[in-house]
């Protein structure tokens, strides 16, 4: 595992008497696509919150490219290249699409990065007031780049670039979130249910975009309930239940693991009784057992 870009060991988080994440190990190699699946309340989002610094872990260690990043504050995480999107979507409603994406550029902005102690703040204010040529050029370059990122979403976002994001559709807001994450030039991109609440065609479109990101060699961690998508995109899949990793391996291995089926359906007798028959089964077979097409166990409940 020496090639792992991100390594997490023994991640643990307790809320009162409940252990939401219980000694989870996880590693992602450069350019790898790892998906985490599991029923609602399995601890997936909590795990991602811990890895990206939104929450503090009670035990465990996270390293990025060998550097210890355990319990760093979220903005430090962003500075070293961890970008994430949120399960329920958190765009800045009163900011335009452009400004939302530009916030993603914030960590790379020289005008915002006066490293001089004491007078640093005065310098930053001064630069913002005077707008010297270097600052203006940097801003224009960032805008140019933001436009390019927004253009990857085709006609969805480009015509609305100067609209405030509160006026956008739900699916478009999720797209803005991903654009904002890409603007950070992340070493690792963490996507928390990027297609939650999307209809089939929107999901397909989003899947295409994520496949494009994968093809461009990005390292991606994904939480997703739509198993179709997970199976098609992932290099590896990790299944969680009750705060623990219950299965781990290639998409096919995890899909056929009786423990995973039990975790989703509550008891093993439905899918798990005939594991032998699974080999020839289409991935859809598990999926059609679920309550909605293309999904398993999704009840739409919050699990933040």
């Amino acid at each position, binding site marked *: 595992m020496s090639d792992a870009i991100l390594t997490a060991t023994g991640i643990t988080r307790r809320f009162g008497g409940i252990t939401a994440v219980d000694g989870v190990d996880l590693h992602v190699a450069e350019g790898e696509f790892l998906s985490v699946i599991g029923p609602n309340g399995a601890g997936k989002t909590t795990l991602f919150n811990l890895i990206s610094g939104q929450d503090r872990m009670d035990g465990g260690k996270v390293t990025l490219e060998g550097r210890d990043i355990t319990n760093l504050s979220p903005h430090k995480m962003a500075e070293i290249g961890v970008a994430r999107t949120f399960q329920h979507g958190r765009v*800045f409603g009163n900011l335009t699409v452009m400004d939302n994406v530009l916030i993603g550029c914030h960590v790379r902005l020289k005008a915002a990065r006066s490293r001089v102690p004491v007078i640093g703040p005065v310098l930053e204010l001064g630069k913002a*007031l005077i707008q010297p040529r270097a600052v203006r050029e940097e801003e224009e370059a960032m805008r140019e780049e933001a436009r390019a990122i927004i253009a990857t979403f085709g006609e969805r976002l480009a015509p609305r670039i100067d609209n405030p994001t509160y006026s956008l559709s739900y699916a478009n807001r999720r797209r803005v979130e991903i654009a904002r994450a890409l603007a950070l030039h992340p070493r690792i991109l963490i996507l928390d249910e990027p297609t939650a609440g999307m209809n089939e065609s929107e999901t397909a479109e989003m899947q295409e975009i994520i496949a494009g990101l994968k093809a461009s060699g990005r390292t991606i961690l994904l939480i997703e309930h739509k198993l179709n998508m997970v199976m098609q995109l992932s290099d590896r899949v990790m299944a969680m239940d009750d705060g623990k990793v219950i299965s781990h391996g290639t998409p096919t291995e995890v899909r056929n693991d009786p423990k995973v089926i039990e975790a989703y359906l509550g008891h093993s007798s439905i899918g798990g009784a005939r594991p032998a028959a699974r080999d020839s089964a289409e991935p859809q077979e598990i999926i059609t057992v679920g309550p909605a097409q293309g999904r398993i166990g999704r009840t739409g409940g919050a699990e933040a």
Partner: protein
Amino acid sequence: MESLSSLMAMPWLDYSISGLVIGSIYALMAVGLALIFGVANLINFAHGAVFTVGAYIGWTCLVGIGLPLGVTIVVVAAVSGAAGALIEWLAIRPLNRQSRIAPLLATIGVALVLDQIIHIVFSPTPRALSANIPDWRLQIGNGTIGAIDITIALTAILSAAALYAFLFRTKLGMAVRATAQDDDAAKQMGVNINAVNMTVFGIAGALGGIAGLLVGLYYNSIDPNASFQMMLKGMVAIVIGGMANVPGAIGGGLILGLIESWGIGLFGASYRNLFAFVVLLVMLLFRPNGIFSRGKERPAEPMTGTFVTQTKAVTLPKPLIWVLIGIAVILPMANMPYITQVMTNAYLYGLAALALTLVSGTVGLVSIGHAALVAIGAYASALLTTKGLPVSLGIVIGGAAAALLGTALAYPAFRLRGHYVAIGTLALGEIVSLVILNWEGVTNGALGVFAIPPLEIFGFPLYGTKASYWFVLALMLLMAGLQVRLLKSHLGRTWKAIREDTVAAETYGVASNYYKGLAFGFAGFTAGIAGAVTAHQWSFINYDSFNLLFSVLILTMAILGGLGNVSGAILGAILVAALPEMFRTLAEYRMLFYGAALIILIRFRPQGLLGSG
């Protein structure tokens, strides 16, 4: 050792008894606030005004009509209860669908209106209140306890018992408790939320009114200007007890009473209010869930404190702005010195409002302690220039002092959210004012600073009405221009991102405390020079020149114009500061005007006249 023995010899038992008696009155105030916070998620700033209503109804019954005390208590409870319910019905219920900070601001408006009505009906001077309570005192150990103490404690205990019976023995009480736990679920189970809210405001009003009467009896006098202070005491008590925790509020009230009483014994009465605010700040920073909460709870989802609605701001066309500036420049030529003076004053408010609209609108930290920044600037410049520093230098130093000191003071409040920011900044404002009052060696204490040199720049005097008008106008336009420039830079979007969603902003690398600090620094500078220039204009300032009312006034201006909106802040300042002066009758009932303006504004145009930016 001698100091220790003299400490031991102090009448601690007496202090403790009076602390518990006053504490039981605070507890009555706090219980009402806690109930309201529980069901309506709201800190009711009008609670102090209801307290004062109770005090004056009590005076009317006891002194005016001559009713016995028992009947008086019942009448006070009934009338102030009705006042509380009326507040809910008129000011709170219509704001059901608005941001959570909206009802809080509306209750500030209600407080102003009620206070002014009491001033109009009963005159603004305190009056005596006595109720033929026997004058005997009982010796206990080395302390004494009087009939008045027992009366107050008994009334408080009986009120608490009645409340307990209501909450746990009646169906409506159960509905109240259910609503406090989860109002949506209660609604689905058929609970009439409006009735519950009204009931709770009514009960809180009745308890607050009784507290008003009891305080009057204890001190033998009632003061129409005590509303805000008493409301703040109740608020401190619920912060100690844990916001919506009713038994906690009682405990918090008693603890606050004891701390105050012992503190006064040790340090003297002029520090009375300081203890409460220091306790408040310490609690907010270290135990925001109150001292009775178990362990460290996960912080609740932010009670989004922003008042910025999702609407597009009105952008004034450039030519119009130049025309307006042109009119402003030639205004003094009309030779109407009164108007010129009023407008100069309005521009000074405009400077302060620019600063507040940046902090509260753009960054989303709703501040009710803005006067502190202005006061720091005013005092810095006034004290230095009376010792010989040139005025122009004093103004700049005043701005810098407010920027640095203001940011440093506000820094601990940066981790607070929503309503807690409002409470925290309020406490900061009061603490600055109390430090100015008590730090006599530097600030001249209650006497204030007088003979402050008039305005001049680099030796050129600006004594005349016109000259100072142009100077203040230029200063305001300069600061407004700089602020617009900042908002157009990366700072503008970064500040707004923090306001919209601090967690998401942090996740994208925005160190929110640092950027809040930058905003406070720039805003502090603007507010500081506003204070400094004001000091030189007035030639006299004291600790009360920039008080809570001043803070509320600036906030009203910023909301009126549209929070975060630069031209809106100036427009708001001109309307609020200048209009009452132009119409004499309005000036007489200024607080009524401000309060009503705030209520109506929040109800009908929360985004302000020009929209929030």
